[in-house]
């Protein structure tokens, strides 16, 4: 399962966090700090997977934002890359050429969309059209 989703900017600012496993407030800050350090310092040509504390973290950079998802050892990393891309495309469709500013000012909408996509750390809906339809209906 996906343990948490993290969106961080290139300067290390947090734009979105979603936790599917129990992490206390302190643990959350610690995790964010550590992961930011690890991921932001990675070079561009390296692979998108990082081993971290017994978990794997899959990240992908879109413009100035890093989308990170932390998964178990036995999960399929390539699939998670697809899930990240799926989410970005849906955001794109919703906001129309989404940029970081959209996500800053409309973070609650970004959360609603994420909630239509993932529950309990698992994928909910593979169709972008359906997700878009559901969001607009609410």
């Amino acid at each position, binding site marked *: 399962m996906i343990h948490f989703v993290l969106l961080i900017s290139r300067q290390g600012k*947090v734009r979105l*966090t979603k936790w599917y496993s129990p992490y206390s407030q302190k643990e959350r*800050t610690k995790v964010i700090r550590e992961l930011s350090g690890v991921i932001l310092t990675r070079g561009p040509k390296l*692979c998108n997977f990082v081993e971290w504390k017994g978990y794997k973290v899959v990240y992908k950079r879109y413009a100035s934002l890093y989308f990170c998802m932390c998964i178990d050892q036995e999960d399929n990393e*390539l*699939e998670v890359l697809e899930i990240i891309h799926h989410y970005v495309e849906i955001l794109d469709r919703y906001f129309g050429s989404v940029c970081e500013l959209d996500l800053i000012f409309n973070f*609650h909408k970004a959360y609603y969309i994420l909630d239509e996509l993932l529950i*309990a750390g698992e994928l909910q809906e593979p169709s972008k059209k359906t997700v878009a339809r*559901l969001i607009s209906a*609410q």
Partner: protein
Amino acid sequence: MNPFSSGTRLRDMIRAIRACKTAAEERAVVRKECAAIRASINENDHDYRHRNIAKLMFIHMLGYPTHFGQMECLKLIASAEFPEKRIGYLGLMLLLDERQEVLMLVTNSLKQDLNHANQYIVGLALCALGNICSAEMARDLAPEVERLLQFRDPNTRKKAALCAIRIIKKVPDLAENFINPAAVLLKEKHHGVLITGVQLCTDLCKVSAEALEYCRKKCTEGLVRTLKDVANSPYTPEYDIAGITDPFLHIRLLRLLRVLGQGDADASDLMNDILAQVATKTETTKNAGNAILYECVETIMSIEDNGGLRVLAINILGRFLSNRDNNIRYVALNMLMKAITVDTQAVQRHRATILECVKDSDASIRKRALELVYLLINESNVKPLTKELIEYLERSDQEFKGDLTAKICSIIAKFSPEKIWYIDQMLKVLSEAGNFVKDEAWHALIVVISNASDLHGYTVRALYRAFQTSAEQQETLVRVAVWCMGEYGDLLVKNVGMLDIEDPITVTESDAVDVLEVAIKHHTSDLTTKAMSLIALLKLSSRFPSSSERIQDIITQNRGSLVLELQQRSIEFNSVIEKHQNIRSALVERMPVLDEATFIGRRAGSTPATVSTSNGASLNLPNGVTKPPAAPLVDLLDLSSDDAPAPSSSGADFLQDLLGVDLSAASKQPGISGTNQAPRTGTDVLLDLLSIETPPAQSSSSITDILSSSQVNKSPDASLEGLSSPSALSTQAATPAGAAPMMDLLDGFVPNSPIPEDNGPVYPSIVAFESSSLRIMFNFSKSRGNPQTTSIQATFTNLSLNVYTDFIFQAAVPKFLQLHLDPASSNTLPASGNGSITQNLRVTNSQHGKKSLVMRMRIAYKSNDEDILEEGQINNFPRGL
């Protein structure tokens, strides 16, 4: 009006925060906003509640504490309006986590919302439940979720399915309720529901064996058909990603098939065709296709063997491995590690590519590749692979060096075909990355060197050369070099034992002494190195009598050292050189060969099979030189460094080192030939030295006691006989002279009491009970870290002519002991000792060291159809258990 009242719109607050130039400014803005929000909460303000929560969420993301808003979320959730509920649930999921008690208060609202008419509200509730419910909430609301699995609206069904996953993870007992509804979901057409249904089934099967059986029997065929449909389906714009219809569904189905097929041949058979189809027909140009292939290969590797499929899978992996995309290569390396257990040959074929990956610029890939290479090493390819790895060691960067060095050392230790190769490789590693080499590795090297007697000359010469070139940075190299110079310096100078491959080299005595002088004086040398150098100098002063003056000079320079160890050594050695020339040569004779097998055995953590004796003459220098204090054990170490001390680098081991030492290799002892001196563990050796029995693995403070007690020169005879001395010990009569442990050097070397070899825990077996019909033997072992617990293996042998059935052994122990009995190997004891029953016991002695074990036992069995009962008390446990 306060511009930061809760009247501010969310957007404005965000803008204000972003406009802050410094962290202090931001903190000020946030503080004002929080104050306003808190005020608004206190006034119970309805209108701005959802705006407040939205602001709080933003502030939370910035990292500030926001717990005061938690109750507001609850109030919002209870509201009737949809937008308010929505933001309330969102706030709940973000600001709280399942461990908070406040969460329980939401249970009621959740229940109501789960029964709401509006499907979107039901959706909200399911989402919240699925993301953060705790175990109690899960239990309470499980029936609702179950019902919703059959709801008319597919979107609700899919959310309910994922919610159910969390429920069964939190409360596995509830899994049975979900089996049937989950199986029904597998027949869905709607992709969302299908995906979530498949996921639910996968998790159910992992949690409950019953579910696994059920799914295997009922659902496998249906799943195979679904996968076939999806794989063969025409272009559907809604689900299409990179030309493949719904790759997510492909992957989930493959995963479920994996869980079902694992360990079950029938299920695996059903899947073969579709797996082959997916493996061959999937497009590999895009990530989606590769993701599917990856999952497919994982599945093939996990299910029951089908030769053709496995070959297909490994081919795919081979292709992945040469892909230029780093992600694909990483994934391939991962899979290959699992594939090794299945088919080593196939993976060996890719060895060259894997080796290339070790040198890749990507840290994740390097790490994986190194682990893979380690798994691939066998006797035939160890030499070229090690060569490559060592070459790479030179170029690798610092963080990686540590890992790499550790792996190389263990490869060398495990697979070295011959000693000279071992020594060569280790020397190279030491020269390159000596500082990363762990203590065990260079200790092992010393053991090997001392065992390779024909290579002594070669080794010391190689070390001399290496020292000239790389001594600057590599502390460990210096230590090994110093030890060898001390031991074999004469071979170096006289060019003894030249091998054909060597270039001739002339080293004079003063060159050799130079080396040691540099080692002592260099500013980067640490305590151990300097201490080792001092003892090496002492050895050389005996082997090179002409340089004795100079050596003495060097030694005396340390007399005033502020470090106790160095000061002590230099004074003592100086004393030896000046006043005790007659014993000096005996003192620093060549070390007896260290027993490799024992050393390696101990390293592996098992008790060594062979035990060796050695004489310990205690180091009791005359003339009132103080006994080396036990506390700075490291000091006593010089001795240790000579004696390739045992494994593991815990503090206790220093003791061993301490022990191993026998300056008096004692060839003078009558009747005692240079026996192997096995590195011994801990206190035991010390005890050996002092012939006092010790409970194993004592703390250092007790050592001090022992030492001081030894001063008194008393060694309890009784303890000695209680001492478990395994076989080899006995060449000397036990405890000569009632154990006069302190051997005065000047008195020559009197055979010391047999040093009980004790590696941590080896005690002799005892016959616990013997009668005309039954014998019971106890074998003891202790685990190293736990001196109070003894594991006993009891062996029961039938001495009569009748078979014993229903054999039961019972034992009782006094209060200070705790006993645990494992089940016996069987209940039937064949006659006349033709077989035996074994049973393991564990005894924990809370008065360990003060009282020894004692046990009452009772044995009941049937012989010739009559019940027999035997009882007894076991008093002859070895002391120190």
